[in-house]
């Protein structure tokens, strides 16, 4: 997947590049609207990460251009302002999703995959990994074709794990993914622990492999290569 990161902060852009690079994505970044326009005129991208506050203007102004010239690209707005207006205007003008700083890189990745699935795979909303298959339309999880009885949160968690497989997911990142940012006081890691425990139990009961392991002190990891 080819990704254009339009973000004026080099460090942040580098974080994203590095993280997505490990997934095998090809990332390019531009720091200004001008530079972004040049790149967009020359190349096609599967996904565009667009910061709102850029040195030479608002990222919103680039949305029209992207929508006209790059109909197939997914646009994900990155904003620090968390202003409702930005969100509404951004989504109205054709952005596919909106993420607020500071985000977890795993979260960003999950969002990119989600908009990509919605748009590019034309309805084939099945995410598969070995014996596990997830239907993101019906929220059905299957292990070797037998239905796994998961709650919506467990389904969400499993999808998050598979999208970010082989990565250490902190409890904070998981909590933020499951309950959003503004559930201010609910980053209760006991709940994360409970959900992960239940999920592992359900998968192994259904005859699936136990891919999820605990990473000491930090969180959890979905291992594609089980020892």
């Amino acid at each position, binding site marked *: 997947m080819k990704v254009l990161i339009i973000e004026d902060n080099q460090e942040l852009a580098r*974080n994203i590049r590095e993280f997505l690079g490990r997934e095998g994505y090809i990332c390019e970044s531009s720091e200004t609207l001008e530079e972004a326009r040049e790149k967009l005129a020359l190349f096609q991208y599967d996904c565009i990460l667009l910061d709102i506050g850029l040195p030479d203007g608002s990222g919103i102004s680039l949305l029209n251009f992207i929508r006209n010239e790059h109909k197939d690209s997914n646009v994900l707005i990155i904003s620090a302002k968390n202003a*409702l207006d930005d969100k509404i205007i951004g989504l109205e003008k054709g952005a596919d999703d909106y993420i607020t*700083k*500071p985000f977890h890189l795993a979260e960003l990745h999950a969002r990119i995959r989600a908009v990509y699935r919605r748009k590019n795979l034309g309805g084939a909303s099945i995410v598969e990994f070995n014996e596990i298959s997830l239907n993101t339309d019906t929220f059905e999880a299957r292990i070797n074709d037998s239905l796994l009885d998961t*709650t919506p949160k467990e389904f969400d968690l499993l999808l998050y794990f598979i999208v970010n497989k082989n990565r250490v997911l902190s409890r*904070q990142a998981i909590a933020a993914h499951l309950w959003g940012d503004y559930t*201010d006081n*609910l980053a209760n890691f006991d709940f994360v622990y409970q959900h992960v425990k239940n999920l592992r139990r359900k998968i192994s009961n259904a005859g699936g492999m136990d891919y999820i392991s605990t*990473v*000491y002190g930090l969180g959890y990891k979905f291992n594609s290569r089980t020892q």
Partner: protein
Amino acid sequence: MLVVLLIGGAIVYHEIQAKISGVEVVRHQRLNDLIADQIRQGGDYRDHPTRKRATITVIPADSVPRGVSSYFTRGIDWNPEFQRDEFKLMVTSFYVIDGRHYRITTYSFIPSFYELLPGVVDSFKWILLVLLVVVIISSGLISKYILAPFKRTMRVIQSFDLKRREPIRLSSTRTSEFMELNQFLKKMTEKAQEDYQSLKEFTENASHELQTPTAIIRGKLDLLMESEIRDEQAILIAEMQNALERLSRIHSSLTLLTKLENNEYVAKEPVNISNVVRETLNAFDELIEMKSLELDVHIEKGIYVPLHAALADLLVTNLVSNSIRHNAPAGRASGAGVDAGGFIRVNLSREGLVVVNTGREPQVPAAELFERFKKGNAAGDSIGIGLAIVRQICELSGFDIIYEYRDGLHGLAVSFLPRVPASKLLQNLLVPLHS
């Protein structure tokens, strides 16, 4: 007014008395002259009406006072006609008739101080009344005409809104005081708008500038987590993650509070709060189940409140998540000595929203719980700003909110209607689940 009337009364009284005396004196002088004429002409006038109150004495020339032809005296004296003391005016005149010196004295009884007083007071009562009516009517009319520009200014000021960037438009006036006032108001509102604008910009900039480095740190930690690290390094990273989480939450909450205080969320259309409550409870379903909390929910359907959709969401989410997080089993407070589990009661009616949950007694006074960074108990990783946000939303929307703790139960009520106090909503609901 009263002082003026008193002074005026005294003056009027004295004037009247002086005038009456003056007129009487002149009349008596004429009467004395008449008597003197009669004496000059000779003849018997003894029973003439002129002699009724006259005393005529012939006096030696040397007892005639020099330079005075007439004088008068006043005083209280016995009136034989009415058999009582009355105010008596006596005028004495001196004449020379046929070489003889005559002293003619006539007197009459005139109204005294006490007899005049009621009249003066009475007339002043009427004057006062008429004056009052005139003053009230005229002041109404005058203020209507004179204060018209002032009232126009007032109307403009009342409809002034900091958020709108347009400057106030004041109608011109010729009165210099109002001109000054208008100029002052113009300057003041412009300054306020400027300050508001820069505050807003600062908030937005601060938000932007702080969130970006936080995002960088978070990203670096995410990347660091995936490198080969030892266990003790993992612990360090986890602690950093925790602190960072806290920082970012405090920051976003404070930014939100500032936005609320700046009135940036204006409800455009009423929101269906019934749906919001139901959806929120659904979202927390699993958490409630994990904590084995019993639910007691009554939601009236189709209730709309004038609230921004995002704020309605925030309000309900904060209340429900609080009731989950601070929930602790009620202990042996209720019933037959059996351990009662924790529960959450959510009641939504036309009047308001009530959330009751079991929990430990808060360690700070109830009123302080709504303050920022005050926590009911030290437990958990809350930053203690959830209730401050809730209160701010309530204040913004004119909702009454109350918190109460009783026998292991926390109750929070939000009243949507101004005429219904929140405490009334809580009355019957702050009771154990099975009672």
